């Protein structure tokens, strides 16, 4: 199991999920991807799309003002 990290705080919808999807495509099943993203639209929509394509959200944490980190396990 490998761990990867992606910062999409500067992206806007839908590039937030596009970048996440592209990164996830490079991973193997069971690998973890930590995605740093903004509160609001990205935090609402990126996890939804991740779940829709069959991957798993393990954790969501607030790391500083309006910035969250989510941990995705690739299916």
């Amino acid at each position, binding site marked *: 199991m490998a761990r990867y990290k992606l910062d999409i705080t500067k992206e806007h919808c*839908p*590039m937030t*999920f*596009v*970048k996440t*999807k*592209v990164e996830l*495509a490079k991973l193997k099943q069971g690998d973890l991807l930590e995605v740093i993203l903004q509160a609001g639209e990205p935090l609402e929509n990126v996890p939804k799309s991740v779940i*829709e*394509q069959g991957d798993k959200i393990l954790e969501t944490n607030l790391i500083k003002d309006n910035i969250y980190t989510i941990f995705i396990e690739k299916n």
Partner: protein
Amino acid sequence: MNLNEEQIERYSRHILLSDVGLEGQEKIIKSSVLIIGAGGLGAPVAFYLAAAGVGTIGIIDGDVVDRTNLQRQILHFTPDIGKAKVISAKEKIEQLNPEIRVNAYQDLVSASNIRDYISEYDFIIDGTDNFPTKFLINDACVLEKKPFSHGGILRFSGQTMTYTPGNTCYRCVFNSPPLPNAVPSCSQAGVLGAIAGMLGTIQAAEALKYLTGVGDLLTNKLYYFDALKNDYRTINLNKSDNCAVCGTRPTITELQDIELPACDLH
């Protein structure tokens, strides 16, 4: 292959589609399509295939841009009048997407050259304006085992079908070119410009679906629409055992040119 940052942005709306995704986009980039005719149908097809990132696009047409083309042939602009259509088309689609390779052939397809042209490509688009060439494209694609999209427009209506090897071909359905007096003459036939776009974009979508392997193609089906009455229908077709080119005892095993007057409608 790995898409670079610019490609990820350019093709982001394809990447988002679960049926296309990165994998499908990579297939599109590696593929090649030959568009026969750079007119009413060929122009929108070339536009969307270039935008989609089809890696190699071949365009074949012997004509130059004429003022009468501009009402529907959306790759050609007023300053292009007099320029070879394939050059005009190449210039536009290379601006749209500089990543793709465009092969411009200022030539007419004939029995002697068509098999060489199509053999280089993954998918063929019929964007021609006359029946003899439509039958020539069909027969060549059957003999070369190449998939192609047939398209035809007239007045307010259009029709299209997709051939893939082993399925119903254009000749299974239409048998042979109609006699010249059975079809509207050049002076009787007009076409609403937007009809060319409606039909051409269906052909472009069929090509992209074939290249990515997504969805159901218009194989063994004829899609027909009459925009005047907003009548859209899909007609099921059957492969014919008696077809002269793909039947059980084919009589067409080599290509021959048929001379019939063309109508400049495409």
